[in-house]
């Protein structure tokens, strides 16, 4: 049990997909305008990661090595299509807010990266917890970035005003603000890492 817990935890801090592995930044930056979009994207990506990791570790022995990447992509694309249809049916507002970034989960490097680097060599349970941990790590990173952007860029968190009379800086809600926040956060985590060493 402890082993599975470790597999789960490593995705959150030690191998955080966004801040440590620096993978899958396109959706991270594009949807992090508000916390609710960030959470939606995080859940969608977690579902895809979980599903593709489990299926790929189940069928790893029957996939020929030379065409494994197309096989992985088909599995991932299937889960993305499921997510897309579910989102359209149950939460059309979120679907419109996330736009083309939902189908683009297919080319999110985290999902293919985990399939290639982890799921195709590991047992089903390990892959399941790895996928879950990576998904949660990704979601937490999205919440952090979108929290900063929504608070400083619109003065709100989840649509609620926190500080009265606070004049937000609109630039953080724009694309350039996303790049600035992620750049500064990466630098900040580098400082922490250097200090520990």
């Amino acid at each position: 049990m402890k082993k599975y817990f470790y597999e789960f935890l490593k995705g959150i801090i030690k191998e955080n997909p966004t801040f440590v592995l620096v993978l899958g930044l396109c959706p991270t930056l594009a949807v992090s305008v508000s916390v609710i979009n960030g959470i939606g994207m995080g859940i969608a990506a977690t579902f895809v990661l979980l599903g593709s990791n489990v299926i790929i570790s189940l069928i790893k022995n029957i996939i020929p090595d030379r065409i494994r990447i197309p096989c992985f992509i088909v599995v991932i694309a299937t889960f993305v299509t499921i997510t897309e249809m579910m989102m359209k049916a149950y939460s059309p507002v979120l679907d419109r807010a996330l736009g083309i970034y939902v189908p683009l989960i297919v080319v999110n490097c985290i999902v293919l990266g985990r399939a290639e680097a982890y799921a195709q060599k590991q047992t089903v349970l390990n892959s399941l917890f790895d996928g879950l941990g990576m998904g949660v790590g990704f979601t937490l990173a999205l919440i952090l970035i979108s929290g900063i952007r929504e608070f400083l860029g619109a003065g709100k968190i989840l649509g609620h005003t926190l500080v009265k009379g606070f004049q937000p800086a609109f630039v953080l809600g724009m694309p350039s603000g996303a790049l600035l926040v992620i750049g500064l956060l990466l630098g900040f985590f580098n400082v922490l890492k250097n200090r520990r060493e």
Partner: protein
Amino acid sequence: MNAAQFLTIFISAVFIYNVILSRFLGLCSFVAISKETKPAMAMSLSVMFVTTMSSIITWFIYKFLLIPFGLTYLRTISFILVIATFVQFVEMVIRKISPPLYRFFGIYLPLITVNCAVLGVAVLNVDMFFINGRATPGSFYYSLFQGICVGLGYALAMLLMSGIRERLDLCDVPKAVKDFPLAFIIASIMSLSFLGFNGFRF
């Protein structure tokens, strides 16, 4: 089909909604390969070629396969498979026909399969030029042109960035922001300056 529409597509794809700086597509390759101008150039040309070709191919697939059979929900799977196959095929052809060209482009081609910009253009074309499951007049030419323009926008951002980073090599930067963080901060400033094109309309 008219000239103004083409001009609008050009301006919005290259400047206002630049693939990298505004839509954040293809960001991974943008940060990883923009350290020097020459590889950046090779990557940009490969992306331009693949976005153009995949715009054409996905248009045909959507119009003649997915719509008539009512399979539009399969667009993500079919597009990504066709793009991956096409890229693999081009890589094989280049390797066979021209080894020097392969050395120049070849290593970047496999990377393009998972470049969000390529799938992004295909999905955008479908979203923009197919209304209620029907192709709008001239949609083929618009899709093709948008493919080219998105590639151009990618090349523009890539070349600007690689030029700046080549110069930064000579500067003394703090250890914490070296490489990735600094690249993002520069991209942020570039994105801010591209914002000046906002509201440019015909």
